[in-house]
């Protein structure tokens, strides 16, 4: 339920709204205002651009950002390694990251397979949030000075406890990301199988 609708519902029921001045809300509205000079680098504008969260209302984004941790990484700093226990899901707020498979050493490029470069507004590590005993399936390294916004298992639990609607919505979006990745993988497997079959036929 959006904040506006909640207020209107309360009004129609004759409930007196909280007469306490909500400073964080005012601060948020000031930051989110299109006239604000800070618009370009605030979380609200950022999450409006993140495709998976575009079903979130303004107020939901405001509450959601309270659960995030801002982590700053310098260029070439390891964010996590393949095989590490995973607990968090990261959004790239600034900069970009490189994803490597079978990564061995930071100075030894030959021993790693570069999988993909993820840019601003993209995300990674969603499995860490959902699986009970997650192991990171790849190594992620900051390509340049990077700012990540991470949400971790305890945050999700807190969100589900105190903001269950928002928590469920976020879980649904995370499940959608997983479903999309699964779909992508299935398509890739089908295409690889087809290629293998073609090669076998040729031989």
């Amino acid at each position: 339920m959006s904040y506006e609708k909640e207020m209107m519902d309360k009004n129609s029921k004759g409930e007196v709204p909280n007469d306490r001045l909500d400073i964080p809300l005012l601060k948020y509205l000031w930051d989110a205002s299109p006239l604000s000079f800070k618009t370009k680098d605030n979380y609200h504008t950022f999450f409006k651009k993140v495709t998976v969260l575009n079903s979130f209302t303004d107020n939901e984004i405001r509450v959601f950002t309270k659960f995030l941790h801002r982590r700053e990484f310098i260029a070439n700093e390891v964010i996590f390694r393949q095989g590490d226990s995973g607990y968090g899901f990261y959004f790239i707020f600034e900069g970009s990251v490189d994803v490597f498979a079978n990564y061995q050493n930071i100075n030894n490029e030959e021993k790693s397979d570069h999988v993909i470069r993820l840019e601003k507004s993209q995300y990674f590590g969603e499995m860490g949030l959902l699986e009970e005993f997650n192991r990171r399936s790849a190594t992620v390294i900051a390509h340049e000075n990077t700012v990540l916004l991470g949400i971790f298992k305890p945050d999700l639990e807190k969100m589900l406890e105190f903001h269950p609607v928002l928590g469920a919505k976020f879980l649904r979006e995370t499940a959608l990301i997983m479903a999309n990745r699964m779909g992508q993988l299935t398509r890739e497997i089908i295409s690889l199988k087809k290629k293998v079959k073609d090669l076998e036929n040729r031989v």
Partner: protein
Amino acid sequence: MQRNLRIKLFLFFFFLFAAIAFAILFPRLTLPFGFAYIVYLMAKPLTAILTTGSRRQRMFFFSLLVIGVSFSLFPLFAAFYNIDTDFSKFSSHLPEVKSRLQDKFFVIKVYVFEKFGYRLNVDPVSFIIEKLETSGSLLLSQIPNYLSSFLEWLLLVPMFLYFFFFQSKRFGANFMRSIPNSIFEKTYVLFSQFNTKFGEYIIAKFIEATILGTIITFSLLIVGFPYPFVLGFLAGITNILPYIGPIIGIIPALIVALLSNDPNASMVSMLVIFFAANLIDMVLVFPLLVSRVVDLNPIIVVVSVIVGGQLGGVVGMIVIIPFIAFFKLLFEEIYKDLSVQL
């Protein structure tokens, strides 16, 4: 770059160990801090319930809370109200107890002389009573010290509570920011798990102690056993100590049953009441409340309680369990990591 990251990691651990050393060196600050933290953890879920939802929901939960707290605190208040009268009653009975004990010891003396022809020339009764009286006067002489530390706590605990309720969020955010990236995920998750486990354990033990104390108080009251409030209160408090607690809790009642000439102070009824209450605790309360919070082997629990008592007295005995549960989590995590690397 790697060097800077290593320096950051070193500095983080250096400050962490310095903070731990400070806490160990200044127990006068650490103990009220720890107490305020326990109160904060116990009140935290309530603040969440009382500050969210509609006004009607909040009123409902508030009334429920008032009823619950009054019910659970009743034996405590009753005990404090009656503790004074019970103790003065006990002190006035002390000469009577002394003569009863001397009578009983005289019977033993005669028995030993008749059976073995040996004359016992010791007087343990006077020795014990003397010891009791001197420790009582020692306790009285210590009152100014207790009073000053009580006043210290009266000042410090609300101050720390204010910090936990209103400043801890900002402090926590700054602390989180200072954790190096390489250990952030694990530290944050382990810290959150410890916080949850500690809070749940303290609340569970408090409820368990209240239930046991209430059962024993009311049962003793019904059978007319002397000092029901004090004995129920002591049994509840000592029950906070796992496994050893129920044994310590029964000792005062055992002494009363042995020494009192009150016909209601029956040893059998007292033992039945304590046994039944501890059975209810073991079969119903403990599995439902406490064991799901700390999943530890009973032998580890007993050893930890002894070690905790050695290190930090009664407080150590209580606090050691969630710490051991946390270390278990930590070792499991390290083991999982090592097994992947191998």
